[in-house]
């Protein structure tokens, strides 16, 4: 497959990147080469393979005792606790108007 300039511009738009004209061609060539390499994944038959959507070892594959050792997801109690970092967080904002972040106007009229 070949990556076109239009592909690069489409992806840059999705990713909110405002590429300079000279960057477009550089990235086009590089993405083309890298995606060409990644194309080797098509060689494998994965029709009966489940995607790895979570990182905890699964006992069904017989990992040596990992599940037996208790690698279970632990959820904390759903209790509301005070969070007092708002001022510290806003202090890092490029433009804050307490208690808000200020941004360019988004609503017309």
């Amino acid at each position, binding site marked *: 497959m070949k990556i076109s300039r239009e*592909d*690069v511009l489409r*992806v*840059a738009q*999705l*990713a*909110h*990147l*405002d*590429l*300079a004209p000279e*960057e477009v061609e550089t*990235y086009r060539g*590089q*993405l083309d080469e*890298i*995606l060409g*390499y*990644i*194309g*080797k*994944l*098509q*060689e*494998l038959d*994965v029709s009966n*393979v*489940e*995607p*790895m*959507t979570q*990182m*905890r*070892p699964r006992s069904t*594959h*017989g*990992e*040596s*005792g*990992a599940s037996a*050792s*208790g*690698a279970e*997801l*632990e*959820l*904390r109690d759903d209790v509301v606790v005070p969070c007092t*970092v708002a001022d*510290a*967080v806003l*202090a*890092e*904002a*490029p*433009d804050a108007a307490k208690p808000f*972040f200020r*941004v*360019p*106007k*988004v609503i017309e009229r």
Partner: protein
Amino acid sequence: MSATTPWTIATVRDALLTKKTSARELANDFYTRIERRNPELNAFLALCPERAYAQADRVDAAVAKGKPLPPLAGVPVAIKDVISTQGVRTTCGSKILENYTPPYDATAIERLENAGAVILGKTNCDEFAMGSSNENSAYGAVRNPAALDRVPGGSSGGSAAAVAAGLSVVALGTDTGGSIRQPGAYCGIPALMPTYGRVSRYGLIAFASSLDRIGPFATNINDAATVMSIIAGHDSNDSTSASVSVPDYLAEMEKPVTGLRIGVPEDYFGEGLDPEVKAKVQAGIALLEKLGCRRVPLKMPHTDYAIATYYVVATAEASSNLARYDGVRFGLRVQGSTLMDMYRKTRERGFGPEVKRRIMLGTYALSSGYYDAYYLRAQKVRSLIARDFSNAFEKVDAILTPTAPIPAFKLGEKTADPLQMYLADIYTVTGSLAGIPGISVPCGKTAAGLPIGMQIFASHFGEARILQLARAFEKAGGFAI
């Protein structure tokens, strides 16, 4: 201490208890070394002497009162600049966070300081931990203390260089596809990537959330094990941290290795492996056999697909995680006429070329019409790679491989070709994708004096097994084989 004997956690403790030095003097001594060496190495991006001396004074007060000292009392440590430190600038090696000061400490930082550690400062790294050479830092490359014209490895190159050059006793790095182990190998020091979920990531600035881990650099296995015993364990602030009890690593690592089955996958010794690296790692494996380990040949047939899988999964997750840098809440803002214009200008100016490249790759892999062919397929191949490991661990207790196919390369040598740079991660990304722990230990040097690393993998939560083999290897002189 003489110039040739590095400080260790044990010698620091001994010097404090026998009052040969104070924690304050020691911190001062390390800052003097940093002042002397850092202009050349560029390992540190920021120092925090106020915080360090305040902590050192607390340690000295405890010594004066004869109080029992915590395990890391007075030990100077360096922290990779992707880990949040309250009140200390944390840039991730990026211009987009040039002036960012986190409002809180990462759990790993809190645990180190509660154990008495003295945090000296923040270390240089590839921007957002994306890179294998440290050349992607917005603040300049780090030089390898073992060969100044060469890279220290990446992305935790600053942490590795700091420890290798004696500018810090231990350091924290992060590993997503090899970013602890590979710089450990290139700089000639032990470097441990723990199991996914072993160490809390609360306060770690995310790159790829299904891969990122925090782990230690040290000059010896005892120190690596000591740091692990402090930072490992469940944290209610990180829902991905595991509630698995933490073994006594220092006791476990001294157990004899006789009878352990060590797997050697032939897939890791093929084309592209430097002959000098191959010879040394084979000598390292032979040494473990001499110590009573049993060698088991392995086949891990999906190894060859690991790089392609990794660069889909990691970039997809990165494109999502890095969406937060938009100029609204923290970091750089470049003014724009509209909100969208502001986002785009901020990100264009703030991110470096490698980060943009990965954001675009990941965005592409997740975009409508390509998701199944790239992201979903990569997640399936990831299952196959994980299965290679789980099958192997039914037959062996650990897996031994080279850490990297080549020793440290020259600065600038690979920057023009991103794909060639990615391919150098071949032996480390497999374990990252599988979620298992791995260490790189020094395994001799090339004829030109460049450090070589040998990698030891174990199954999930098998850090004790890794440390046990690494410790036996160290005691038998394997580091200088």
